[in-house]
């Protein structure tokens, strides 16, 4: 199959009126939740998930994906205007975006962000189109050994590379895998960890966990975060958005570097847009001849990370679609959505559902163009929306959460499960245990167990088979390296602290 005919096939799916409509809804909702600090793409996708059960899976995926990358566009708006990241991955944008806004350059910053995001996404979509089929082809030869090793690497990377204590990330991911055990054992049909509850025989509902951890708990913590309620934001006019000639010159190279960094990091399972934005920022500062400008409103300081986080979002679809292994928690939700529709992502996905795969990829182009067109003129509207007081928003969001959780399986039990995980999420936030690895572990857990058991059955209980096969050996070596790296980081931090304490005592 050549790229051109795939291109045409995808386009014919993506430009049907329904596809365009759902793409439009997705990117608009995505931008909306991205702009509002406190409701991330995660909450929005889990909210939309139950509704997608009623529509064609292709359109469902197009819409959910649109929410995801749309939120990336919107996330930077709050970063620039209020110094509050709309989504975690746009936190880096605060560093130079907010100083630009303070200097009266908010419009330029928003414009540059939209352009950089578009460049990053476009670059990564090309990468997806070229590489996803190649990886899927290679993965056709994968057996349980390879799958187990890749998943293990993804889980370890997702838990140890995020910010904060790697041990806490690890705890979160293992708890997630453990929660995935609840329900009926696929191999033996035995009920496990159901505590005699019939409602748990199919396992814990993904929507309920996601809405609890990322919806209910975020609402409670946002209510506490006072002071963010009525931001003092100026007007952003269309004219104020146009960059000067010097500023134009600062876009292409940082955007190109950011796109490359974002795509490279986004492909790896386990590391999402947040890390890539951060890396792109560091790289840009390093190659800059005037690094002292960073943090004080350097245009490159928003261009590179914005290109990178959008590129990472798009590139993240490569492992999800070609291997069936989601790179982060949001991708895990997308994977969950596909499984609910009876579609198993993986190497066969592209050959079995070519119109769905290529339609989705082509919709990325359409969505990104829509976003560019929507964002530049509508920035003024988004700015106004930031002024909606939270006491009006949160009861409304809660209603959507409750109805959404209920409607996924018409189950009141799931509503209580969501509440329970809302409390769990709050407790985890309070002690700084990240919640995203938990969800990733939950989705991948059953697959991990299945491949582990099958591997051990095939090898008759010999562990060294994993090291005898080159692909699984490579991934396990990377996994070990990640663990060593995390351990080394903890040791170094502990030593630094001791030295600081000694210095303070002296």
């Amino acid at each position, binding site marked *: 199959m050549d790229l051109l005919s795939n291109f045409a096939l995808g386009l014919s799916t993506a430009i049907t009126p329904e596809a365009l409509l759902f793409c439009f809804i997705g990117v608009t909702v995505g931008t909306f939740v991205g702009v509002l600090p406190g409701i991330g793409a995660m909450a929005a996708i889990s909210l939309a998930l139950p509704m997608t059960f009623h529509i064609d899976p292709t359109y469902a995926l197009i819409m959910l994906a649109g929410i995801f990358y749309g939120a990336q566009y919107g996330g930077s708006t709050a970063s620039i205007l209020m110094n509050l990241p709309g989504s975690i991955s746009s936190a880096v944008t605060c560093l130079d975006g907010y100083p630009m806004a303070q200097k009266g350059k908010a419009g330029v910053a928003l414009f540059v962000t939209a352009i950089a995001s578009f460049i990053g996404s476009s670059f990564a979509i090309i990468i997806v189109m070229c590489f996803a089929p190649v990886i899927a082809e290679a993965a056709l030869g994968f057996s349980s050994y390879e799958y187990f090793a890749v998943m293990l690497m993804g889980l370890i990377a997702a838990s140890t590379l995020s910010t904060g204590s790697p041990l806490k990330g690890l*705890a979160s991911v293992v708890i997630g895998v453990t929660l995935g*055990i609840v329900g009926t054992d696929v191999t033996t049909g035995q009920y496990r960890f159901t505590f005699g509850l019939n409602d748990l025989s199919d396992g814990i509902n993904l929507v309920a966990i996601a809405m609890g951890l990322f919806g209910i708990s975020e609402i409670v*913590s946002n209510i*506490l975060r006072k002071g963010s309620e009525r931001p003092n934001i100026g007007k952003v006019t269309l004219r104020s958005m146009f960059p000067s000639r010097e500023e134009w010159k600062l876009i292409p190279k940082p955007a190109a570097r950011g796109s490359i960094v974002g795509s490279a990091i986004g492909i790896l399972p386990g590391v999402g847009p947040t890390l890539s934005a951060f890396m792109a920022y560091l790289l840009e500062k390093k190659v800059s001849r005037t690094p002292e400008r960073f943090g004080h409103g350097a245009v490159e300081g928003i261009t590179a990370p914005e290109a990178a986080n959008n590129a990472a979002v798009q590139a993240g679809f490569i492992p999800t679609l070609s291997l069936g292994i989601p790179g982060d928690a949001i991708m895990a939700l997308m994977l969950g959505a596909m499984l609910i529709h009876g579609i198993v992502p993986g190497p066969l996905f592209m050959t079995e559902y070519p119109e769905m795969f290529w339609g989705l990829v082509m919709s990325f182009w359409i969505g990104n163009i829509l976003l560019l067109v929507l964002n530049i003129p509508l920035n003024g509207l988004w700015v106004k929306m930031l002024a909606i007081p939270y*006491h009006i928003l*949160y009861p409304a969001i*809660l209603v959507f959460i409750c109805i959404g959780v209920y409607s996924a399986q018409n189950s009141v039990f799931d509503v*209580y499960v969501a509440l329970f995980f809302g409390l769990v999420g709050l407790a985890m936030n309070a002690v700084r245990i990240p919640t995203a690895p938990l969800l990733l572990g939950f989705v991948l857990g059953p697959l991990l167990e299945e491949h582990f058991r099958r591997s051990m059955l095939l090898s008759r209980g010999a562990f060294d088979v994993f090291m005898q096969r080159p692909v699984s050996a490579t991934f396990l070596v990377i996994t070990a390296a990640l663990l060593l790296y995390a351990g080394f980081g903890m040791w170094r931090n502990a030593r630094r602290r001791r030295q600081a304490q000694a210095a303070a005592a002296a």
Partner: protein
Amino acid sequence: MVSRQKLPDLIAALSVVALGVAVVVIGRGYPVGTLSRMGSGYFPVILGGLLALVGVALIWEAIRAGESALQRIPLRPVLMIGLGVLSFGALVERAGLVPATVALVLLSSLAEPPLRPVSTLVIAAVMSALGVALFIHALALPLNAFGG
């Protein structure tokens, strides 16, 4: 001597250990089998053990780490939002979507002072209407607006 600031991290670490031990204990109640023929208990036992190990490492980290700022536990929002969600669950099938929605909005509005009776009632009315239109009429959920 463990300072008060370390207490939340320590409690979290101990909870992880406890969870791990519980998973091992419950997991051993299922057929464990052998490595080459795993029963439904094998994988849970491994995971529980792993979890307990990570928990022990977390205890070590909590004791050795510097002070971490204690985060206040938000009692009022937790309580009001919790009650709101619980009453939604209790009412939605027995009394219908509208009463459940109204109860949820009224209770959760109390999470954040001050009281805003007018805007709360408006939100309750708008969300009820939207819920009925979207979920009962458009998506055809098997629910009634009023009554079970």
